[in-house]
């Protein structure tokens, strides 16, 4: 029953997973740029963002048509609404990869700091894993998997805070401070990608349970169950 609706919903989910693959390619590229100072690759990734944007726009259009023609309700409606959010989170994650590549180009003349590079590698790998877990949980309707993202996110946040401490210790040389500031923005980008993965996890929980809730409450820290 309702074969067309089901086909269109299946296509929507496939499109999201394909878009996520594009974002993961961007992210892996950005990590390589940061850890290997490969500036040519940075330009490629900046250009590659057009593909993510195309996927994003196509999905938005598909959703608009599906809503207008199929008027989904209940779980179907939740899948469509969740798709809109996930689509936006993926597109934003890709934009963050572009930001990191642009910053990497700006600091190309400064000597790399091995500790900072190691930190980016760790955070980048964690962010990649988180996006993967988020998309797998969505595909598998796996609420526990989605909730596991909160703990993973805590590890990225910690790495980000450690880097902040290190940059603050750089001293007063204006060039080093400018470099440090840019490193902080990059670190923040990686941390934000982790946040987008958590948000995708929240959409999975909404899809399955019908209940919209934030996994963690940033404005009331400590108020959630520990």
């Amino acid at each position: 029953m309702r074969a067309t609706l089901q086909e269109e919903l299946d296509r929507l989910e496939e499109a999201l997973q394909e878009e996520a693959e594009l974002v993961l390619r961007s992210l892996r590229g950005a990590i390589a740029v940061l850890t290997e100072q490969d500036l040519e690759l940075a330009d490629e990734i900046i250009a590659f963002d057009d593909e993510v944007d195309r996927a994003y726009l196509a999905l938005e259009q598909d959703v608009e048509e599906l809503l207008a023609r199929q008027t989904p309700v209940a779980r179907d409606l939740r899948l469509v609404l969740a798709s809109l959010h996930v689509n936006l989170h993926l597109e934003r994650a890709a934009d963050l990869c572009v930001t990191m590549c642009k910053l990497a180009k700006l600091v190309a003349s400064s000597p790399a700091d091995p500790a900072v590079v190691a930190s980016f590698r760790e955070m980048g790998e964690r962010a990649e894993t988180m996006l993967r877990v988020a998309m797998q949980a969505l595909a598998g309707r796996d609420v526990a998997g989605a909730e596991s993202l909160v703990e993973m996110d805590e590890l990225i946040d910690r790495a980000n805070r450690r880097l902040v401490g290190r940059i603050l210790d750089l001293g007063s040389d204006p060039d080093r401070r400018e470099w440090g500031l840019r490193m902080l923005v990059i670190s923040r980008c990686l941390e934000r990608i982790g946040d987008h993965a958590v948000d995708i996890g929240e959409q999975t929980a909404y899809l399955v349970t019908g209940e919209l809730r934030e996994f963690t409450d940033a404005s009331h820290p400590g108020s959630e169950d520990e």
Partner: protein
Amino acid sequence: MVAIVDPARLLERRPSAQVERPSCVFELRDVSVLYSGKAALKGISLDIQARLITAIIGPSGCGKSTFIRCLNRMNDLIPGAKVRGTILYHGQDLYAAEVDPVEVRRRIGMVFQKPNPFPKSIFDNVAFGPRVLGLREDLGARVERALRQAALWEEVKDRLDASALTLSGGQQQRLCIARCLAVEPEVILMDEPASALDPIATAAIEDLMHELKREYTIVIVTHNMQQAARVADMTAFFSVDVGPEGERAGILVEYDRTEKIFTQPADPRTEGYVTGRFG
């Protein structure tokens, strides 16, 4: 900039009036309907609230029409029909021996799927009920009020003596609603009131229902789920239960606020039906 507002002042802005609790018009407890000894509907328990639109949805044969016919004793007119269980109307047993079914049908009016005006003038159609009940005072004003309430007055005020059969299908259906309103009922039962109408006439009926619920309690049977989603406050999903020997009877599966039924139905059978995957 976000202004810092004293929370106490925010509280002041809230309406101080208490929200009026909806009162119960019908209370059904374990209601079954049998036709010649065979159950068409079984074990129905639900409450219907005043001045809300309650929609009854479900597949063919689930007893939707049988259900609303219980609410104004229309099933009495079907030979061999028997209603079991309790139906309270404002706390009073609707099927008690001393209850006059004609009075019941005055208070609880009904509009049918196919507009069924009498082959009389527009005026006489609306005046029919009041005349039968001996409400002859200010008949003209009563007819006008009913036609206005049914959003038909402007279209027919200059030709009240014309035959009702000259009206379009949508106008005929609003005339039937006016005929029902002319005897000042409390409840209006509607059995697929728009399924024979085109989309524009359907929209007019739906707008009218929205107006009428300020004063009336409406129960509507519809096979159009989007219509239920659009107009109803509460929605009851009925389905067909198949017994061990293949006997089929309508049952109530889920009854909740309409938005709940169409976003997070609790029962998988409801979900299957509203998403169109009913197997």
